[in-house]
């Protein structure tokens, strides 16, 4: 992870509507990833690591924890445009993801605004399952200085 900033659009001139950042193909999801995130966040819902509990909820196996991909979408964005300048970061959860899924993160510029004294860029990050389907979509507003 990291090293995106070299090739990606980062200046006000480069961050035109429709400009894209290089997509990131993540490693296949593992239940260990879920457990590591759950430990870090304190959300110990067993649906993400306990097969018997997942079956009782109607799933064949534990399901991915959405906030993990949300956090990884944030990592992708931070590697692109840096954390201190981010003013809004949101995610909407769509389809369930599973252990073994390869998630692909792809960002693009969707808007530009110049309120008094500031330059703001709106971006959207799609997080798709390589097997098909959209796991989540994220949006952000970023202050641009250069």
């Amino acid at each position, binding site marked *: 992870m990291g090293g995106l900033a070299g090739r990606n659009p980062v200046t006000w001139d480069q961050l035109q509507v429709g400009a894209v950042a290089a997509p990131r193909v993540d490693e296949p999801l593992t239940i260990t990833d879920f457990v590591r995130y759950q430990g870090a966040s304190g959300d110990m819902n067993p649906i993400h690591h306990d097969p018997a509990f997942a079956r009782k909820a*109607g799933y064949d196996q534990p399901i991915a924890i959405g906030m*993990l991909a949300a956090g*990884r979408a944030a*990592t992708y964005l*931070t590697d692109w445009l840096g954390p201190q300048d981010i*003013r*809004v970061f*949101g995610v909407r959860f769509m389809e369930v993801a599973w252990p073994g899924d390869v998630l692909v993160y792809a960002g693009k510029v969707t808007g530009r605004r110049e309120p008094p004294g500031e330059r703001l860029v709106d971006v959207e990050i799609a997080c798709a399952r390589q097997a098909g389907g959209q796991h989540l979509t994220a949006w952000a507003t970023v202050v641009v200085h250069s």
Partner: protein
Amino acid sequence: MCIELGKVREFARAVGSSHPVHLQGVTPVSPLTFLQASAFWRSPANEALSNGRDQRRVLHASQEFVFPHGPPRAGTTLTGQQRIEKEWTKEGRRGGQLDFVLVVTDYTDEHGALVAQVRSTTVSTARPAGRS
């Protein structure tokens, strides 16, 4: 609540970040979704808003973080104030009622200035959420 250094580093690794701004020094910037973690470390007084919901039937619909001056650093002491901003109901595609709730948490610093706002929408299904 104090944003703890070790927790920031642990969280950054869990979301696959190797960005030095999250990992170096003693006051690294917290990752963008870090404040979600605090929802699970809160005091008993705040538990009421999510207690009593069946974990098999609650799904996270959306989540938004607003930072007027960028995400807070480790070492910052924040006070969280949580409220239910909106509750609404929809009819699910497979039948059964979907109950949505938008919980907003305002985080302020020692001077009362807003540092972050976290907006979390969850949905409860009438039946367990998985295919049955």
